[in-house]
């Protein structure tokens, strides 16, 4: 018979084992192979970049959580994802001070301002990236080649730029590496401005220039699939993004395959894969309803391709995700599920 007074709780008295910190930790684990590949590809600079953004993001989160009296929110691990993902979307030679600005702005403006985890309206990492893209457009479109010799012993010259100063131009450094002419350009830029389409296989496996963590579509796909399999993320969003992108690209490619990229190329270049699996799938920024998730995903995929093909920018994943984040509340409220037994769907447009 009970020694202590018995307890009373409300039902249900059972609970699934999944919790927020576990979800977030799984995502971090899934990101580690991608980080490792990035470091293997770009060397010391990529390592420093990842460490910087993660550290600054965590520090910012800690600071704001303290200021707003929320206690320690680092334990939910979400900000670690933000930090790592931010680094993975930046060019490998991006000056560290700018990366720090991105991480700070991303967490402060993208998350803390609205109350922290769960209340941010847009993807925190991408808010940071969009901010520095608008602030330092030259630095963020300066690409360096992968597999540069000596990458594990020395950093890319622009990495260690003094705070608030302009990065040194890396053109001479790249020339000094004596790689072939296009190695510093990303496949997307080659395609857009020169109509040269590098082989998809090369793009797929990551033997190319690009942001620190977006180059190997294959690895990202595997890590993403693992998360989807573990039911950490909803597979619908990434699949919808990829389908939306491929289906939008298809007609243009069929019309003029010399000027427009193939659906395969569209899928496996730029940030699309990373964006689809790790950023569009961010739970907080996506709609809660299942049909909403599909609409949201297709919207991101289609918009990315439209920006790539017709916009002034070479890559549109980031903006597509941010815009979709902004539209997510509307999508959610327009796709409220049909309640069991509801005779006619009482949909409220406004």
């Amino acid at each position, binding site marked *: 018979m009970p020694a202590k007074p018995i307890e009373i709780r409300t039902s249900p008295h059972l609970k699934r084992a999944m919790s927020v910190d576990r979800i977030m930790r799984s995502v971090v684990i899934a990101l580690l192979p991608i980080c490792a590949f990035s470091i293997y590809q770009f060397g010391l600079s990529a390592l420093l970049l990842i460490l910087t953004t993660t550290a600054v993001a965590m520090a910012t989160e800690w600071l704001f959580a303290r*200021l*707003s009296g929320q206690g320690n929110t680092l334990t939910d691990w979400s900000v670690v994802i933000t930090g790592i993902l931010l680094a993975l979307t930046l060019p490998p030679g991006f000056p560290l001070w700018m990366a720090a600005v991105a991480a700070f702005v991303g967490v402060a*403006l*993208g998350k*803390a*301002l*609205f*109350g*922290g985890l*769960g*209340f941010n*309206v*847009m993807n925190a990492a991408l*808010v940071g990236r*969009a*901010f520095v893209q*608008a602030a330092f457009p030259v630095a963020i479109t300066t690409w360096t080649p992968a597999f540069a010799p000596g990458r594990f012993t020395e950093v890319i010259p622009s990495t260690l730029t003094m705070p608030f100063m302009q990065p040194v131009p890396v053109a001479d450094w790249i020339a000094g590496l004596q790689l072939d002419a296009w190695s510093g350009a990303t496949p997307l830029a080659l395609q*857009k*401005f020169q109509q040269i389409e590098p082989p998809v296989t090369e793009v797929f496996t990551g033997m190319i220039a690009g942001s620190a963590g977006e180059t190997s579509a294959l690895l990202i796909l595997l890590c993403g699939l693992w998360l989807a399999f573990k039911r950490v993320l909803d597979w619908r969003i990434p699949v919808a993004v990829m389908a939306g992108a491929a289906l939008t690209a298809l007609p243009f490619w069929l019309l003029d395959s010399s000027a427009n990229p193939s659906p395969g190329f569209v899928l496996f270049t730029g940030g699309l894969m990373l964006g689809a699996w790790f950023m569009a799938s961010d739970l907080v920024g996506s709609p809660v309803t299942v049909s909403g998730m599909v609409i949201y995903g297709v919207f991101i995929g289609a918009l990315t391709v*439209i*920006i790539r093909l*017709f*916009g*002034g*920018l070479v890559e*549109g994943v*980031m*903006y*597509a995700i*941010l*815009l979709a*984040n*902004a*539209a*997510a*509340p*509307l999508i959610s*409220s327009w796709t409220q599920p049909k309640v069991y037994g509801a005779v006619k769907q009482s949909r409220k*447009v*406004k």
Partner: protein
Amino acid sequence: MQAESLYSIFLNAAIVNNFVLALFLGICPFLGVSAKKETAWNMGLATMFVMLVSSAAAYGINWLLTELELEFLRLICYIAVIASAVQLVEMFVKRFSPALFRSLGIFLPLITTNCAILGLALFQTAKEYSFVQSLVYALGAGVGFMLALMLMAGLREKLELARVPDVSQGAAMSLMLAGLLSLAFMGFAGLGGSVG
């Protein structure tokens, strides 16, 4: 640039150079009535309507003033005509459809002092748009205004239930949200024109 295609005019006004998020026109109502989706929708409709009306009116006035060589009176005439047109519409709605007035009409006076309307009239004159182009431009601007307003309203309704810290409550948060939206809209840059 009379040759600009209607499609390009529309995209430009609605998205690329969105009146609110890129050109900073109509910020006051944008901040003021974007708290609820429903009011935002009504405000958007009302603005769109007034934009079309005043675009047509402005085109006519401009023609008249040019004929009379009185271009220097353009500003005064535009604003006077727009203001009275709005007031007339408002009274009309209030008198004949109190229900519509409650949902739409209360925004009409707000629109009078909305620079987006006057800006539209001035821009279409400066760009020397034809009548049809002007209307398309007005429609684009209206759609863009509605888009910005609805996105903002969606976000603000979501944040209404959020644990927003005291410091960022109110106008500060709205401005930051608008900044984020404006940042995201930069992705549309160059859209509608040909590249490369």
